């Protein structure tokens, strides 16, 4: 636990250092700096829900994009059909997705519902939980994503009407996107506090490090997993809610987050909040600067190549580097 906290401390130091650099950049070249901020926010928001579910439960959720879809649709529909104000609509989007995630966890990931039915009828469990079964969870959630995309198409049609972007623009840069950057920082702070400063966070980290011991110490690990999945889903839904005014509302909209999300999670490494922030801070500027200098194609390729190189030369992801750095510094002191 001490190790975890000290690791987080160094990670946060790194984040603060990079943010400080950005502030200097904002004074020097405001427009470009806003674009870099936004690229970072996009990657972090795309990845955060996936990172929590993957990092804590060992479940690769290929339906992550469709969880974002649920959040975006719930937000848009509650604003356009029910007349809810946009901020409230966004909360609705996050809550609906969290509830949806809860159902998915109970029915598929943990197998609680099918196993309960199995116990009642044939007297045994029917399925095994998907925790830490990376490939199997991938196939299951791929199936789920096919069902969700086509289901959304059948229920809501090929598109739904989109809500407009709130606010105007400052110095040629949209205010809403600047707001998104701030919200991203807020989301990261809340998630960080949740996992480090609350009882729930302690239980989660205990479960993550050693499930057996945690159970022996009286932690209800199944409940922990359930809540973790719901929180991860809720964050994915919140991402969908935030981007709802910016994206074309079609059943396939989730796919545009998937690549950034996976790359950021894996490049980030083991630690959820710090790793995701750092990989966002590394990949976002690469994307924005290459797009700016050489066009969008170069930006896209640079992002992907940088991710491959990072995975190759930073085993254990960026968090691994932070770990080693810490070991060296504490070993020296």
């Amino acid at each position, binding site marked *: 636990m001490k190790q975890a906290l000290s690791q*987080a401390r160094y990670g946060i130091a790194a984040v603060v250092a990079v943010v400080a650099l950005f502030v200097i950049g904002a004074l020097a070249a405001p427009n470009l700096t806003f674009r870099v901020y936004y690229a970072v926010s996009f990657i972090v928001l795309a990845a955060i829900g996936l990172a929590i579910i993957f990092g804590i439960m*060992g479940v690769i959720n290929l339906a992550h994009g469709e969880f974002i879809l649920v959040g975006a649709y719930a937000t848009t529909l509650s604003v356009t059909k029910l007349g809810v104000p946009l901020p409230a609509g966004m909360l609705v989007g996050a809550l609906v997705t969290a509830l949806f995630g809860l159902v998915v966890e109970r029915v598929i990931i943990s197998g609680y519902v099918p196993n309960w039915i199995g116990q009642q009828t044939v007297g045994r469990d029917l399925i095994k939980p998907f925790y830490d079964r990376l*490939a*199997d969870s991938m196939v299951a959630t791929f199936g789920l994503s*096919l069902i969700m995309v086509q289901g959304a198409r059948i229920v809501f049609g090929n598109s739904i009407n989109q809500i407009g972007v709130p606010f105007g623009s400052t110095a040629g840069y949209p205010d809403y996107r600047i707001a998104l950057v701030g919200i991203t920082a807020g989301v990261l702070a809340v998630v960080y506090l949740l996992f480090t400063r609350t009882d729930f966070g302690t239980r989660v980290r205990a479960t993550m490090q050693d499930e057996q011991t945690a159970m022996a110490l009286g932690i209800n690990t199944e409940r922990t997993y359930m809540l973790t999945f719901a929180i991860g889903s809720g964050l994915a839904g919140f991402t969908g809610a935030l981007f709802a005014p910016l994206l074309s509302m079609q059943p396939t909209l989730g*796919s545009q987050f998937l690549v950034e999300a996976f790359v950021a999670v894996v490049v980030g490494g*083991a630690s959820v909040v710090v790793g995701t922030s750092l990989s966002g801070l590394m990949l976002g500027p690469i994307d924005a600067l290459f797009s700016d200098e050489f066009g969008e194609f170069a930006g*896209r390729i640079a992002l992907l190549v940088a991710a491959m190189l990072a*995975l190759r*030369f930073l085993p254990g992801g960026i968090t691994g580097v932070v770990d080693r750095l810490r070991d060296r510094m504490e070993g020296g002191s």
Partner: protein
Amino acid sequence: MVAASTPSAITRLRNRLEGPNTIGNSRRFWTALALVVVALIAFPVVGGTGSQFSLFLVLGLLGLSLSLVWGYAGVLSFGQVVFFGIGAYTFGVVSINVPTPAGITGAVFAGVLAGAVVAALLGYFMFYGGVRDVYVTIITLVSTLVMLTFMAQTAGSEWTIGSAALGGFNGMPAIPLLTLGIEGVFTFQFVFNDLELFVPVLGVVNIDPFYYLSLAVLLAVYLGLRVLVNMDFGRVLVAIREDEDRTRMFGYDVERAKLVAFTIGGGLAGLSGVLYAARNVYIDPSVFQLYFATLPVVWVSVGGRKSLLGAVSATVAVEYVRLSLGGELALVVVGALLLVSILVLPGGIIPWIDDKLSDGRLDVSDVESPETPPEATEP
């Protein structure tokens, strides 16, 4: 004395084909396989030309390549479609530039080679760099996206190799028809060349020669891989899959074994791509899309990834269902089938059937092993 102790040719062959790493080591299995092959040979005579079924057989090769790499060497790769696509594009480029039967035959080998070489380079980059587990998966996934983004924008005439335009998003046009052989000796056109065959009772039926080509290639590759995984090399692969560090402790060159398996897998995926492009007379970057990249993982998981037979059967079955279901609910049904099959039979369908048939006899390949857990993590 000597004659008596030498096993018969059949027994020797069976010894090479059988072992704990494959399902189906009984006489009953070989009889069943022979029956299936006979049924497949007869199939076009009664069930149309077989031209659609040849697609499933070609994709079966792609499934086999992933089964070797993932099911035996334990390397979960999303990149099989990269080697598949590169094989297909190489075949297209070479055959357009040399559109003679000998040139097209050479293009087939060039495609396989290209798949293998790219796999070897990527494999060297990863395995000798100490990249493992989910990191390998994501690097291969990212490499498919690099290919997709790159190939989609190659529409301009600057992306022309010899007389072959890569064609960008619209795909590579005008790939010559697959005609194998050497001019003056023997040549045969395999696609768009239905043969009329007189069958008693049924009359004249049309059969597609490409179907038989793909069936023969698939069968040969399946049997070849059985020999491979039952060799010592195959045992090393399985040892790596089960515990990489322990295998290294025993003195095996883990990186080299994984690289060899990955390269063979790349060559097989390339072969599958060559046949795919030849069959459709077309190849486009959609083979690098995430959706298509996920399909091999789905086939192999559903069929049972530790079983070559499972990979082939599930590829054919899943693709058949995917292409023949129509209507609004088709994708929902496909998704539900995947979900339910992986929920209920996580080891795959074929190992489950094998288990039922052999009545609980414990087979090494069936032993459940948990995935390597991710390293201890901190939020």
